[in-house]
């Protein structure tokens, strides 16, 4: 199993994400944003958290137009898996791979703490090892995590069970308490919370492990 972790100038969760993939049995390639192609045989692309390009213009906006992201789009268009966390989620919405946008937190504060998430669907590779409705403890660390989409999009996301995680106690003003969403083919997950920071007992929590462990089933016939 092979994972690629994209590295932008200003990414700062790239190595944590790589370790989480490695612990789940992946061989990981770190891929610089100027590359135009992913390495051969990549099963999943991780788009990490951080402050790509200094959050200039809009969070994730410049990164979403970088050369490697065109390759990530092609990978996803061909049915490949991708996981965008925090700034990575912002990048995926900026590319249009996931609908909606992340606005400034409603209380304008940068929020850095562990929050409770509710698993809203187990119908995805990412969430299948959780129980539906299960509460998990995962850290958030963001200033722009206030999920926004028009009513029609929100209704579609809920109707198609594409909301992967919601906040038990909404910290940032996100519409419908949304913390993470799936693409139409359920192979792209974007989420603001950091499962890779809850993936080792030494992190103070291990509720993110099940997500990465479940990805180990990626080789199962599609």
């Amino acid at each position, binding site marked *: 199993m092979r994972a690629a972790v994209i590295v932008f100038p200003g990414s700062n969760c790239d190595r944590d994400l790589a370790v989480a993939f490695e612990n789940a049995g992946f061989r990981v390639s770190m891929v610089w944003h100027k590359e135009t192609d992913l390495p051969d045989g990549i099963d999943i692309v991780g788009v990490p958290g951080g402050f790509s390009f200094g959050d200039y213009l809009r969070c994730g906006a410049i990164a979403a137009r970088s050369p490697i992201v065109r390759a990530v789009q092609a990978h996803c268009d061909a049915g490949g898996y991708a996981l965008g966390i925090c700034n990575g989620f912002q990048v995926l919405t*900026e590319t249009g791979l996931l609908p909606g*946008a992340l606005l400034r937190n409603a*209380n304008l504060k940068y929020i850095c703490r562990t929050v409770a998430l509710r698993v809203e669907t187990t119908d995805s590779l990412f969430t299948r090892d959780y129980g539906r409705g299960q509460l998990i403890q995962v850290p958030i660390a963001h200033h722009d995590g206030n999920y926004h989409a028009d009513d029609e999009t929100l209704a579609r996301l809920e109707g198609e069970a594409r909301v992967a995680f919601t906040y038990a106690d909404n910290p940032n003003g996100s519409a419908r308490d949304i913390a993470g969403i799936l693409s139409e083919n359920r192979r792209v997950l974007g989420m603001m919370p950091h499962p890779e920071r809850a993936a080792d007992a030494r992190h103070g929590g291990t509720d993110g492990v099940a997500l990465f462990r479940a990805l180990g089933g990626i080789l199962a016939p599609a």
Partner: protein
Amino acid sequence: MKARVHVMLKAGVLDPQGEAVRHALGAMGFSGVEGVRQGKVIDLDLAEGTTREQVAEMCEKLLANTVIESYEIEIG
């Protein structure tokens, strides 16, 4: 030639920064400020002959996120 692009959050998209500015103005004693919306102004220095359509394409593809933002272009 120069172009100026105004980018604003669309009506109906909550603007927490604008709201914070509105509260601050009220707290400073400026009464009657009923709404504040904050946006961006982007000045472009362009080669002669650049068309409005090209600037619009820049807006659509990068300068604005049309999921949440609208834009206006001033050429001049």
